[in-house]
């Protein structure tokens, strides 16, 4: 009953573990997500700018993955599927936050905190909060998690060329937001 760590490259060679987890094997699921929780949480934290909301969103996404895993079409696309679940949860948090803001104008405590960090990066962090969730996601995959374009494409379930194009546009959006900040 020991949890087995997945390979050094968790995105590869996990299809068998996904299949086992999809058939109800909790150990397999634990092994599957053990190498992914950190990335999921960091992604959510960077998109939402709030620790508690990031934890909730990542937890909801991972639990949704467990519940719906038997209906995953292709085990080799687990990472793309999980990424989609996570980003959707983040979107839902942002929608709730927007509604909350409309109801209670002073609800600063539940807003994102993109101010945490050094002075040197402050304008970039503020600009990051102004671009879309999809743009934030692709920038995080490539520049925070260090995934090469091929893996970014796999996480987004798009061709490599599309990933490259979206990454370029996301970078341009961030630069424009940065100029607006200035």
């Amino acid at each position, binding site marked *: 009953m020991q949890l087995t760590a997945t390979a050094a490259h968790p995105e590869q060679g996990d299809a068998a573990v996904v299949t086992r987890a999809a058939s109800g094997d909790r150990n397999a699921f634990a092994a599957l997500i053990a190498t992914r929780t950190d990335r999921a949480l960091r992604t959510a934290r960077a998109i939402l700018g709030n*620790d508690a909301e990031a934890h909730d969103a990542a937890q909801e996404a991972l639990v949704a993955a467990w519940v719906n895993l038997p209906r995953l079409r292709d085990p080799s696309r687990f990472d793309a599927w999980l990424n989609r679940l996570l980003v959707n949860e983040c979107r839902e948090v942002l929608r709730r936050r927007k509604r909350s803001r409309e109801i209670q104008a002073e609800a600063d405590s539940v807003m994102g905190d993109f101010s945490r960090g050094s002075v040197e990066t402050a304008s970039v962090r503020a600009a990051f909060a102004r671009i879309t969730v999809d743009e934030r996601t692709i920038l995080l995959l490539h520049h925070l998690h260090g995934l090469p374009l091929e893996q970014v494409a796999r996480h987004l379930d798009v061709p490599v060329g599309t990933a490259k194009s979206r990454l370029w546009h996301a970078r341009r959006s961030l630069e424009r937001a940065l100029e607006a900040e200035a």
Partner: protein
Amino acid sequence: MTTNSSRLSDDLLRRALTELAAGADGDMLLTDVMRTVDARPQVARRPWDTRGWGRTVVLVAAATLLVAATIGATVVLTRPQPTPQPTRTPLPLSTEVIRVPDFVVPFTYRLPVGMGGQLEPFGSEEKVFTIDGHTVGSSGTLELFPVSGMAHACGASSDHSLRPSIISGVPTALLDGLRSAGAGIGPATTATLGNLPAVAADVDPSLGRCPRVTLHIGGLGLSYAKYEPALDVPGRMVLAQPGRTIGVWISAPTAKALANWLPIAQTLIDGLSFDSGP
């Protein structure tokens, strides 16, 4: 994508994103997720779901089914009448006594004659012992475990379903608690668990309002892979109190398989002898 602009270098972007993502505790998230997973059943895959098979595989499968149906019909129509299988009768106990000193209550047991394997321990602290009937052609299982007095059931809200409900550690009250939690528990009857007096009840999940109630067993040192007997298949629960309450869950995937397995499991139960028993 390694482009740099005068204002936004890759390095500056990476540092900004790292600061934005800082403070995340993945270990705590993993713990919370697995605790939730324990209480959340998966959706069933649709039987007709052929996603991922590919068009060729689906066509081949359909053709194979058609051929198999044709052959099957031919065989059924031409074969002689089958010989009725005798009903399984209880097996005698072997004379070999196996001692288990590291259960919460040390015990010995004997296996039914012809049954291979042994009670397999799970956990590093308070252990759960299991055995299945594959060596005697059965798909049933038997699980022996310490009772924590808690269970996961179908919660009224997702928040409440995350944590186990406290039921009771006392045998009869535990059965009542499981019934209240929605498990399909039949009436409690007096029974024996080896050399101990016990109470027992038949379990039929189709009669309960919660299709999957699981018994929470704490303190096993199993990390995220908690062992939780699940009352989501037909079975029989036997509970006794040799100092601390212990339970045996005898189960099988179907009622027919359980009927086949119960006499063997009962023989195994009869071969149990707990140290603190009378």
